[in-house]
């Protein structure tokens, strides 16, 4: 049975590439050591393999359904989540003072990735709950934390994020849900929310909806949006559950993948009032939500990478065992067929997957470590630098794995041939599940706009300069290693080109050609993404090259594999960035200029 995750590689990334162990030097993480991190990852693997994985296919085939009264979900989900809650996973990343483990985010993100690889549908519920609890930790009053966050961290209540509406997804400034102020300081919410994951179920005693809405009279656009807590069951002052609140399930959405996480359309305040409390100040709703956005988006990238990884490992295992065909040079038709992994084209598909999934995973873990470094950095200037790096890398951490690790899932299906297209093997499910990731948490189109329109230009390009500085340092070190000099040269070229292209685009923006400036933002995202992944491949190759000489047989193959994948990425993938740079530098308007009636 192939593994869900290659622990050797995860260890390589966490300890050899990113030195996560070094975080324990900071007081915030001093209570931990590597053995504790290993213990956490071992425990995650075991729970994921034994409680999440076994019902993944069943959950996909039996999606939650609504009988007009209740939402039914197969019982295995509840069992898995009970074990998850009992294991203390819900609050793993929270501080000890909130009853959490105060683990580095990088370790928690890796563990979460393992649960997603095992069963994304079941994992969805606790991830949403931790995220909702985290929002209240940052912006809730102490009273709101005791009343709502605590039961969520204890796993008794689950949470949701209610942003989207039928008419407003990417453009949240257009949401219409109303919040009507009441004499007692509470609000009554009225409106419709769409796409709400985990919006209705019996898996927990209560559901805490965090809802974006407009207070009557608030200005148009994002500045008029506030955030509210609207529980499914009202909560009495002593914390016990009161009457059902005015949140009604309008219907379920029937999805291509991620079927285990029930997805709902919710109506607020239709007949019964939907009583809510405001979180933070009026008008700060989107700011509160987006405070947590980097971590949410890294989480999406992480899930995309680990689902891609699981598909890669499955197809690799298959390719080693499936006899078919003979080498091109074999003349004798009666000779034994070879395993398909012997065919160069199958190796291409495996190598491409490896380059994508290990590259994507490295980027997400790199970003997760930036979150940790930021949390322990004392020097304000260095903290600001870490913040800027995270800001510029986050749209790539979300979009790149969700585009390219999805591509990897497609290749995994291809490696299995016809078998890959059937539901007897998990690779088609990985593909369907992963297909969500380019869409939610801001579509990849929106990520492109965020990267080029905001992150690159912020503070006069300071974030981009920091990123290029880090890339330059890797280039410099690798240039001194003969085996890596070819890549160092290519990366330097790609980074220089990216800098030039950005200048050209920036000038267009300064001249007021805003539509032209952003017309190819997604292309820019791909170019930058490929450059950043090439950088992280060179970093991996540098570690691998250094470790190779002293390694034993199995580790030698592991490190050699890293070097091969680096070579693949630099020779087959990075040149694509140069082509994209040409189009971008030309301010190409092919797409922009084509009018709707010309299609």
């Amino acid at each position, binding site marked *: 049975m192939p593994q869900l995750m290659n622990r050797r590689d995860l260890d390589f990334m966490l300890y050899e590439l990113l030195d996560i162990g070094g975080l324990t030097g900071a007081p915030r993480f001093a209570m931990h050591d590597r053995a504790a991190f290993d213990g956490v990852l071992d425990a995650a693997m075991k729970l994921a393999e034994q409680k999440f994985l076994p019902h993944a296919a069943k959950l996909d085939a039996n999606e939650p359904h609504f009988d007009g009264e209740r939402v039914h979900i197969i019982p295995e989900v509840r069992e898995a989540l009970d074990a998850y809650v009992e294991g203390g996973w819900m609050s793993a990343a929270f501080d000890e003072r909130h009853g959490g483990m105060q683990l580095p985010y990088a370790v928690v993100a890796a563990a979460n990735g393992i649960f997603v690889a095992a069963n994304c549908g079941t994992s969805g519920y606790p991830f949403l709950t931790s995220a909702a609890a985290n929002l209240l930790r940052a912006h809730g009053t102490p009273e709101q934390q005791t009343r709502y966050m605590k039961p969520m961290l204890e796993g008794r209540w689950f949470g949701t994020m209610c942003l989207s509406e039928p008419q407003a997804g990417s453009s949240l400034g257009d949401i219409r849900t109303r919040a009507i102020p009441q004499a007692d300081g509470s609000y009554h919410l009225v409106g419709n929310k769409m796409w709400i994951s985990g919006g209705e179920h019996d898996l927990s005693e209560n559901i805490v909806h965090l809802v974006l809405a407009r207070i009557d009279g608030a200005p148009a656009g994002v500045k008029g949006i506030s955030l509210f807590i609207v529980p499914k069951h009202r909560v009495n002052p002593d914390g016990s559950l009161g009457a059902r609140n005015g949140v009604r399930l309008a219907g379920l959405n029937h999805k291509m993948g991620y079927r285990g996480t029930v997805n709902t359309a919710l109506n607020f305040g239709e007949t019964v009032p939907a009583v809510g409390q405001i979180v933070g100040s009026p008008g700060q709703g989107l700011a509160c939500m987006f405070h947590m956005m980097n971590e949410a988006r890294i989480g999406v990238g992480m899930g995309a990478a680990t689902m891609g990884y699981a598909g890669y490992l499955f197809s690799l295992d298959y390719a080693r065992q499936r006899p078919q065909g003979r080498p091109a040079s074999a003349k004798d038709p009666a000779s034994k067929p070879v395993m398909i992994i012997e065919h160069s084209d199958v190796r291409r598909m495996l190598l491409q997957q490896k380059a994508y999934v290990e590259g994507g995973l490295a980027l997400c873990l790199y970003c997760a470590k930036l979150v940790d470094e930021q949390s322990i950095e004392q020097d304000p200037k260095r903290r600001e630098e870490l913040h800027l790096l995270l800001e510029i890398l986050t749209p790539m951490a979300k979009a790149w794995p969700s585009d390219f690790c999805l591509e990897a899932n497609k290749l995994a299906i291809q490696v299995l041939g016809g078998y890959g297209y059937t539901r007897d093997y998990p690779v088609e499910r990985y593909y369907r599940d992963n297909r969500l990731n380019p869409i939610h948490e801001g579509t990849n189109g929106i990520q492109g706009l965020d990267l080029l329109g905001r992150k690159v230009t912020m503070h006069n390009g300071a974030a981009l300069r920091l990123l290029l500085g880090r890339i330059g340092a890797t280039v410099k070190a690798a240039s001194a290693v003969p085996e890596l000099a070819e890549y160092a040269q290519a990366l330097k070229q790609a980074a220089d080109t990216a800098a030039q292209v950005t200048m050209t685009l920036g000038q267009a923006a300064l001249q007021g050609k805003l539509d032209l400036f952003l017309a190819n933002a997604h292309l820019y995202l791909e170019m930058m993404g490929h450059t950043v992944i090439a950088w992280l491949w060179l970093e991996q190759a540098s570690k691998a090259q250094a470790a190779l000489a002293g390694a034993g047989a199995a580790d030698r193959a*592991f490190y050699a594999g890293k070097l091969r994948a680096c070579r693949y990425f630099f020779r087959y993938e990075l040149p694509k960035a140069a082509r994209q740079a040409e189009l971008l530098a030309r301010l190409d308007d092919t797409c922009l200029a084509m009018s709707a009636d010309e299609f």
Partner: protein
Amino acid sequence: MKVLVSVKRVVDYNVRIQVKSDGSGVVTDGVKFSMNPFDEIAMEEAVRLREKGKVTEIVAVTIGGAKNEETLRSALAFGADRAIHIKEEGEVQPLTAAKAFAAVLKKEGAQLFLCGKQAIDDDANQTGQMVASLLDIAQATFASKVEVDGSKAQITREIDAGLETLEVDLPAVVSVDLRLNEPRYLKLPDIMKAKKKPIETIGLGDVGVAVEAGTKTVKVAPPPARAKGVMVKTVDELVSALKAKGLV
């Protein structure tokens, strides 16, 4: 009552074992290790006995190199109160291990020694029995049920003919089988607490034992690949084929 549980660090059961090309052993570098699954069952049983109020202290013991500390950390996370690391970087064969465990058992005055029926690396299935013989105390192997009552224990064991229940006087050695229990999932708070629990590190010499190599590994080879099957058309053909191979 105090229980001593031995835990061995072995190549993880998920790893596809590879034999070294020179036939001197199996590849262990870059390979994931974890606690012997049968020892996990022994740990779980010790914790359950404590939860039932039958046991007051659980001590985990291991023999092996520096990395064995990881295995002890797992045992502490499972619920051992403290751990003893008998540090030995070289090969340890069952008799050496048994002598060391017997010495620790005696020194600790533990009433029960729980161990896996075998370790999944060498599958020797010897250590528990040897500990009992060395101390001349009762033993019950392959336990599928353990009940402790005062100075005695009732052990149900899996034998070829079915189940057999023995009563042993304590102190005793009990080696555990697969169906005894299902080890729990480690909880994060327990993994964190494990770091604060004491691990005492000693050498084999400290318990008066010297490394003994009673057996010598001559060669390690992978099992022969399965030969290609043949299709037969009739039962007669099958019988003559089996006869030809000397199988019937």
